[in-house]
């Protein structure tokens, strides 16, 4: 049996829920895996574990410590979902000044806040499952890879590729701000296949041609501000430089 834990840092816990969304497959998974630690689903939780799935990203010093401890007590650490993998939505706070950001807390500011970063900023990470929430297919791929002792690889192509494979009509053609061309594949183009433009929740991929994407969007009449917002939504941390460049245009 492989022992696993699902841990939460600052996030919406949607990835924990997504884990439970495996439903029938979860029973299949439990034949090989033993869930030792899963606050959302279990009362008694323990460490160490063979594989730690960490969702969210540390936003306080306390959480950084928690992350370091999880790393110490696990053999394999998996960044579960975009917040953990790229900084995701919590990273949005880095777009504003600290003073401005603290306003939302009113008279109850958090104790020792830290800037949200991808968790590999603090600890080595073996695997990343991108997406908000992550893709169940990819999780199953990873789980199978671990059982069979083979490598797990993230896609190095864009959502556009998967969208085109499903022979969808292109949403850019319809004038939508679609992040498909710069977003990492792996979701089987879930949103565009259902008529909603890609929001880029899986973050950028290695070969993304940002300048070409931005040029295309601007040619369509989409404003710089709208593009900056779309780029910042899930990927402010990895795309900081692109966004800074865009602001200067």
């Amino acid at each position, binding site marked *: 049996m492989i022992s696993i834990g699902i841990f939460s840092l600052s996030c919406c816990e949607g990835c924990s829920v997504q884990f439970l969304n495996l439903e029938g497959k979860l029973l*299949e*998974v439990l*034949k*090989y895996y033993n869930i030792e630690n899963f606050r959302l689903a279990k009362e008694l939780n323990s460490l160490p574990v063979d594989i730690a799935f960490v969702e969210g990203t540390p936003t306080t010093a306390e959480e950084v410590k928690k992350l370091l401890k999880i790393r110490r007590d696990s053999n394999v650490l998996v960044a579960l979902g975009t917040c953990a993998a790229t900084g995701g939505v919590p990273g949005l706070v880095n777009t504003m000044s600290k003073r401005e950001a603290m306003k939302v807390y009113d008279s109850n500011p958090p104790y020792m806040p830290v800037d949200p970063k991808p968790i590999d900023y603090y600890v080595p990470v073996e695997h990343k499952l991108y997406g908000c929430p992550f893709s169940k297919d990819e999780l199953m791929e990873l*789980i*199978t890879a671990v*059982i*069979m002792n083979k490598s797990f690889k993230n896609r*190095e*192509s*864009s959502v*556009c*590729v998967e969208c*085109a*494979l*499903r*022979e*969808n*009509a*292109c949403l*850019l*053609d319809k004038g939508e701000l679609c992040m*498909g*061309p*710069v977003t990492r594949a792996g979701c089987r183009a879930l949103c565009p296949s259902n008529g909603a433009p890609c929001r880029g929740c899986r973050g950028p991929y*290695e*070969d993304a*041609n940002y*300048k*070409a*994407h931005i*040029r*295309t969007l601007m*040619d369509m009449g989409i404003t710089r501000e709208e593009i900056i917002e779309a780029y910042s939504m899930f990927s402010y941390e990895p795309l900081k430089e692109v966004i800074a460049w865009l602001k200067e245009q």
Partner: protein
Amino acid sequence: MMTNYVFKLPKNRIYEFLNSLIAEYTVYAPVEGETSRFERITDACEVQFLPNRTDRSLKSIFFPPEEEFFKWKKEKDGYVVTDSLKPSPKKLIFGVRGCDVRALDILDRYMMGEFSDPYYKERRKNTVIIGMTCDYPRSSCFCTAFGGMIPHHYDLWFTDIGAYYLVEVGSDTGMKLIDSQFQKATEQDIKRKNQRIEKVELEIEKQTKINLCETKHCSQKIKTSVEHPMWKELAEICLACGKCNFICPTCHCFDVIDTTNLDGSEGARMRRWDSCHLYEYAKTSAENFRKERHARVRYRVFDKFVFPVMRYSTYACTGCGRCTDICPAGIDIREILREMIA
């Protein structure tokens, strides 16, 4: 063609004719959806009579985006492999345009010529083609650069000449489809058909302004432009999304993917369309042989206009213009060609 192989069918009899075909064949015809494409129809009233080509080509009927090769299962003494190749029904495709018929000819050379693909071959065999002349071109069309709207091979070819369809017979199979509803065409009918074709082709030529018919010469010109600065300029704007490959009626690259259950006791192997624009396309365990985007952009153009000419003496492009229509970055293949062969 001799006049006794040219017929005409009153337009109001087309539904009756199609339903008689449906009784005998699995019939595919243009259907309008979010994108227009060929789909299986079970009643003639489902057919859309479009003025020109469909958004999607015929490719996925014969070579679907994903296809299983085989399943395997672990047994006590090794593995049992079961081929997923299924017998395919007799197909008839109605309303195909010249570009797509020509594309099928090209795809045949890749898949059933020098090398043979059993899955494609099974789907492709016994396919009857009923083509149709376009009423007017799309803005991206440039089939005249490759010889025009009417292909060499077809079973029947329909051209709208007013109250009738003029019907040309291109094969014995086609001749067998001619029943009592068809009338002999007159000289006048044939003249009208020719005028019709001339008019549309002239329109296409006006918007194309390139002629690639001198295959050897043009291909040679493109071949010598390996170092052309345009490749790097295109690489700047190309999104490497692979859409031009997937939409192309002659692109036939695929990736091979293995799937298994959790413990690896059974699984399957399948293929999925792949694109030469993608970063991982030419990667081996040791090296990535087309890491730079400009090399990938160039490769696709060469693989349409240079390599197939060297190997099969034909372009792997038919001027359907789908890649131009679908490119999110607005790359127009005609502009590339004009630049190369200017």
